[in-house]
């Protein structure tokens, strides 16, 4: 038993890791750059860099082998200024970089800082500068070699360093040129950082894992953490799905018992027919029809949450739409049980059918019913996606869809991950419950 639980747990952990991998590939790698939805392009590349830096999108994807050009401004105070966090830190404002001979591209206020930000990637003393930026080489293009490019750095005390980039081709050259500038006199120390093994995991993937495990991801739009968001919005989702699930289960059981009681008869056939028809109607039709009916009865409850009672329209729709499938499922479960020998024995002894049904059969059906109920738990939190969107209920499903349109990756990732965790945990619970209550079942 203990070994079974441990093995099952290990499987669950591996699955959860897989989910983190899938969400990473989907939302970080395939979805690509989403900063355009959050950064005003008019603020220039600097703002975009700051955004990427803040959300750790400037890191390499899987493993971090990067070295950084570190510029330490010693002219005022003694703080370290590293280009890697240039956008967000106050040091960026203390130190201005300008690339003198080049006009900044339209829409970019400070070409120099952009260039500096790009320097972060894949540095080594011998890395050629021109290759580091994927957009614009730092050194002058061959056909413009008549103009020697200058890198103008303004320090916090007003000192201006004009570094001739004519002979600068590698990062090491740049650091040496900055350190050796006559106006510098030790005010700005340039060096190329050493790579340490601890930095290896400072990558997008490991930040993604960390944020998933600790639920510390924050929305791009509101800065709110995932946990807080789920706590705030989740209750609206639950207020639809919990009553819907309870009522749906109750009604499905009632119908299934009724149908099983009259199995083979007209009521059975008719119910099965109706459930099949019900399952073929698209979910959207239930929603629109439900709203239309409610509009004719009491228009003010037909949409929104103006009064708490309005929540029962989506609840009713969820119940009705789900009833067909669950009645069919539970009918099969009960019929499987009814055809067993002990039922025949009980009937032969003269036990009345209702007594058999409610005393013995239902008890023995508990496991599949429980499985079905537990496997629906993850849908409690996000299940009413369409209903929430349609009826304007500010739950998690609605948030998920809004985040899709606004490209709020941390929220999308967090919600997907959270639902999946719930699903994996509930499957784990079901399996353990099975093993506890049904001694016939063991993992081979």
């Amino acid at each position: 038993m203990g070994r079974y639980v441990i093995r099952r747990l290990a499987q669950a952990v591996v699955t959860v890791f897989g989910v983190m991998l899938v969400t990473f590939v989907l939302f970080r790698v395939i979805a690509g750059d989403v900063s355009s939805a959050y950064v005003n392009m008019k603020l220039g590349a600097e703002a975009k860099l700051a955004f990427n830096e803040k959300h750790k999108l400037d890191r390499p994807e899987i493993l971090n082998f990067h070295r950084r050009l570190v510029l330490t401004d010693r002219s005022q105070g003694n703080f370290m200024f590293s280009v890697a966090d240039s956008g967000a830190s106050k040091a960026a404002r203390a130190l201005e970089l300008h690339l003198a001979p080049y006009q900044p591209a339209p829409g970019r206020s400070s070409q120099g800082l952009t260039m500096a930000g790009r320097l972060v990637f894949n540095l080594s003393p011998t890395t050629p500068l021109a290759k580091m930026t994927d957009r614009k080489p730092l050194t002058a293009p061959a056909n413009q070699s008549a103009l020697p490019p200058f890198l103008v750095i303004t320090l916090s005390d007003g000192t201006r360093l004009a570094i001739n980039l004519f002979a600068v081709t590698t990062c090491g050259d740049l650091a040496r040129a900055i350190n050796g500038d006559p106006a510098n006199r030790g005010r700005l120390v340039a060096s190329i950082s050493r790579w340490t093994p601890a930095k290896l995991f400072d990558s997008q993937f490991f930040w993604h894992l960390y944020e998933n495990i600790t639920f510390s991801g924050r929305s791009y739009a509101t800065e709110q953490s995932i946990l807080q968001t789920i706590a705030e919005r989740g209750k609206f989702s639950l207020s639809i799905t919990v009553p819907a699930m309870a009522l749906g289960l109750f009604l499905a059981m009632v119908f299934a018992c009724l149908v099983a009681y009259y199995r083979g008869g007209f009521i059975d056939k008719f119910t099965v027919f109706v459930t099949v028809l019900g399952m073929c109607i698209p979910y959207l039709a239930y929603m629109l029809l439900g709203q239309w009916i409610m509009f004719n009865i009491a228009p003010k409850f037909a949409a929104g949450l103006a009064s708490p009672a309005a929540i029962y329209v989506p609840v009713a729709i969820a119940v009705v739409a789900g009833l067909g499938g669950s009645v069919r499922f539970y009918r099969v479960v009960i019929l499987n049980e009814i055809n067993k020998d002990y039922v025949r024995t009980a009937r032969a002894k003269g036990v009345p059918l209702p007594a058999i049904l409610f005393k013995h059969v239902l008890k023995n059906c508990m496991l599949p019913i429980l499985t079905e109920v537990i496997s629906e738990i993850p849908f409690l939190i996000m299940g009413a996606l369409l209903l929430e969107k349609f009826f304007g209920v500010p739950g998690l499903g609605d948030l998920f869809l809004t985040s899709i349109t606004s490209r709020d990756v941390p929220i999308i990732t967090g919600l997907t991950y959270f639902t999946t965790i719930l699903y994996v945990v509930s499957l784990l619970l079901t399996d353990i419950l099975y093993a506890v209550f049904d001694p016939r079942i063991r993992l081979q």
Partner: protein
Amino acid sequence: MNAMNTTMGRSLWGNAVVRLRRDKTALFCFAVIVIYAAVAVVSPIVFPHWDASYNYRLRNAPPSFHHLLGTDALGRSVLVKTLLGAHVSMTVGFMANIIAIPLGLLLGAFAGYFGRRIDDIIVWFYTTVASIPGIILLIALKFAFADRTLWSGTPFELDLSGMAGVYLALGLINWIATCRLVRAETMKVKELDYVLAARASGRGDVAILVRHIVPNVFHIAIINFSLGFVGAINAEVILSFLNIGVQNLPSWGKMINDARMDLVVGRWWEFTSAVTAIFAVVLAWNIFGDRLRDALDPKLK
């Protein structure tokens, strides 16, 4: 398949065809599906200019002799819109299966036949994907595909933000059901005498898989075709409703979306036509799929 039909006695497939032919309901449902498919193919050819056939004087006109199912908010015929919608729905159902069935069949047969590490990896992969709730994964995939273009610059350019993304997303979700069942069946089949005999006579793994295993688990893929088709139709409707599905073509999901405020003011025709169209084809697929399963899976008899 034809080779099998000519063998002595009746093969699984021959048997299934005979049984389906006797089944009037199954035949009727199959006919409905064929009609839908024909409409899907023919309607874009017959009505190529429907999209631009605005008529502002006839906006939201109720059904009349001229427009049997009324007109939409731009004065275009709803009947034609519904017929054109079949194109999107049928294509999505078909393409999703075209991606999902070979993927599921291949991975399932591999996992079941080779076992051990390969099995572990494939099972891990589909457990992972399956543990993300379907609709969330679908929306997430569409989000990830939002501005992706595969093989851009080549003749095979695929813009994943449009229809191709819907096919791919659905295909990447639907293969799991097939894979799971095929894997289980392969594990049973590979222990059967004829596979052991083939192995004893020195056939290679690939030959055994292709000649002996895949033909004997193929009926599972066919059964899953109907399920996948229904799933794809419903998913397309939901995606179009959420405005992340098909963009520039008339589809039933978009018709329902367009009609979301119509019912309340008494304009029922657009909504009703779309829902009826979906209902009929889903019902036909469901019943036909059930009958097909009964005919192909002798154990269920």
